[in-house]
């Protein structure tokens, strides 16, 4: 009995130690990432490349998901408010608020954690196991800053645009689905999305997006940067990047919602 308890205790201590050690390494890595860049022109060029790779190439998936999620939200709201005491414009209002408050920031961030996060972790992880990061370090380049900072800047700049695109496309999806299914008229939907509109909700959504963009990039880069081994470990790091950044996003979603909306 007692040896079993001691073994469990040791396991818990070991787990806590690994968590704290990983947490410390994450902050040390951030310290290296935000060190003064060696040559601004090269960092600018890298940032432009990352804007295309991580930003522009995410527009397609954002549009597709937002359109269908907007459509589903509208239809779900309509079927759950089939009561004469609820005015139909509430369907438009529900669609608008769901998309702005939660979907376009949080759900899109979770999807981007899958797409962008795994991309970042596998790219940096492969560079680590093929000694490309060693090559950078040997040249005297701050590899963490050179590889990660442009990605952080690119996602911080571009993800708010993705959120705005998602809001517009999501509401359009809701309107098309609602009117096509005959659950709401165009006039009622437009009245609903304008009813009691609070502009701060957009600001709230964009603030969340900035936090989530930072989490996706830095957590995924951290997983890739410290990979040891070969392709199997790179694959594992890629999976960890998606899981850890998703969990962190969900945790910060609760914290930010409480801080920004209370």
């Amino acid at each position, binding site marked *: 009995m007692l040896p079993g308890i001691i073994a469990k205790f040791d396991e818990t201590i070991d787990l806590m130690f690994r968590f704290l050690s990983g947490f410390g390494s994450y902050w040390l890595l951030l310290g290296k990432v935000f060190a003064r860049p060696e040559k601004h022109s090269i960092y600018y060029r890298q940032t432009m490349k990352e804007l295309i790779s991580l930003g522009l190439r995410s527009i397609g998936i954002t549009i597709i998901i937002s359109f269908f999620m907007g459509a589903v939200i509208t239809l779900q709201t309509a079927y759950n408010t089939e009561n004469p005491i609820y005015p139909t414009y509430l369907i438009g209002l529900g669609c608008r608020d769901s998309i702005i408050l939660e979907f376009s920031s949080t759900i899109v961030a979770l999807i981007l954690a899958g797409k962008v996060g795994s991309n970042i972790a596998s790219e940096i992880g492969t560079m680590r196991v093929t000694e490309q990061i*060693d090559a950078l370090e040997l040249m005297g380049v701050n590899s963490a800053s050179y590889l990660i900072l442009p990605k952080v800047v690119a996602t911080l700049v571009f993800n708010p645009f993705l959120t705005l695109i998602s809001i517009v496309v999501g509401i359009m999806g809701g309107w098309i689905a609602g009117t096509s299914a005959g659950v709401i008229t165009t006039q009622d939907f437009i009245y609903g999305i304008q009813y009691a509109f609070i502009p701060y909700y957009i600001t709230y959504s964009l603030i969340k997006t900035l936090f989530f963009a930072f989490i996706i990039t830095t957590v995924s880069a951290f997983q890739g940067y410290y990979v040891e081994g070969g392709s199997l470990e790179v694959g594992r790091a890629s999976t960890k990047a998606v899981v850890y950044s998703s969990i962190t996003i969900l945790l910060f979603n609760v914290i930010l919602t409480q801080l920004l909306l209370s």
Partner: protein
Amino acid sequence: MIRAENVTKSFGGREVLKNISATFEPGKTNLIIGKSGSGKTVFLKCIVGLLEIDEGNIWYGDTLFSKLDFTGKKEIRKEMGMLFQGSALFDSMTVEENVRFPLDMFTRMSEEEKLERINFCLKRVDIINSNSLFPAELSGGMRKRVAIARAIALKPRYLFCDEPNSGLDPKTSIVIDELIKEITVELNMTTIVNTHDMNSVMENGEKIIFIEEGEKCWEGCKTEILKSDCKILNDFVFANSLAKQLKASSLEE
């Protein structure tokens, strides 16, 4: 000149390098030989500072490199070039961009000067009309040569090569060996090569250090290796029958 003094390195309680001391001279191809897992790569990575040593000192000329901080090391690293085992070319960049990278990062050369230097380095390693190719489109030997071109782009004082012949056919290996030797003399560099290729040892071994299980067991040059009576060295160097015959004939002479 590079000097390693009593270098010790452990990983999780396992001592990989045990009190190694060695001097590497400029204008010469200095070889570190030993079987796989003997600690050659760890020693080389300690010398270049990619791994922190536990005890001892690494000197670059009169500078105690191993005690420098990141900024101090950075200055010396600008004078280093390294050819990694797998070439370590940047996958997302073309051949030209790979060679251009250190020039962009650390020089204020004009575009014409950079292009001139890139083409000179690529021509020197016999890579012609391949500027726009990506590393994935090159053969193993070509990748090694592009990696050498990148390593010499900034005219380094120190060149490090980790198993430059691994994965290459014997003929290409000789080409790479000759290239390293010629460039070393041309630029009067201090070159350190990690290898277990016996052709390299016999061709380039102006100074050889033999490491076995993390310890330096022998030091000499290619002519001395033939007459050495160090059993562990002889078992390693003259492992096949052809090499044994060579050893026997050299002793008869």
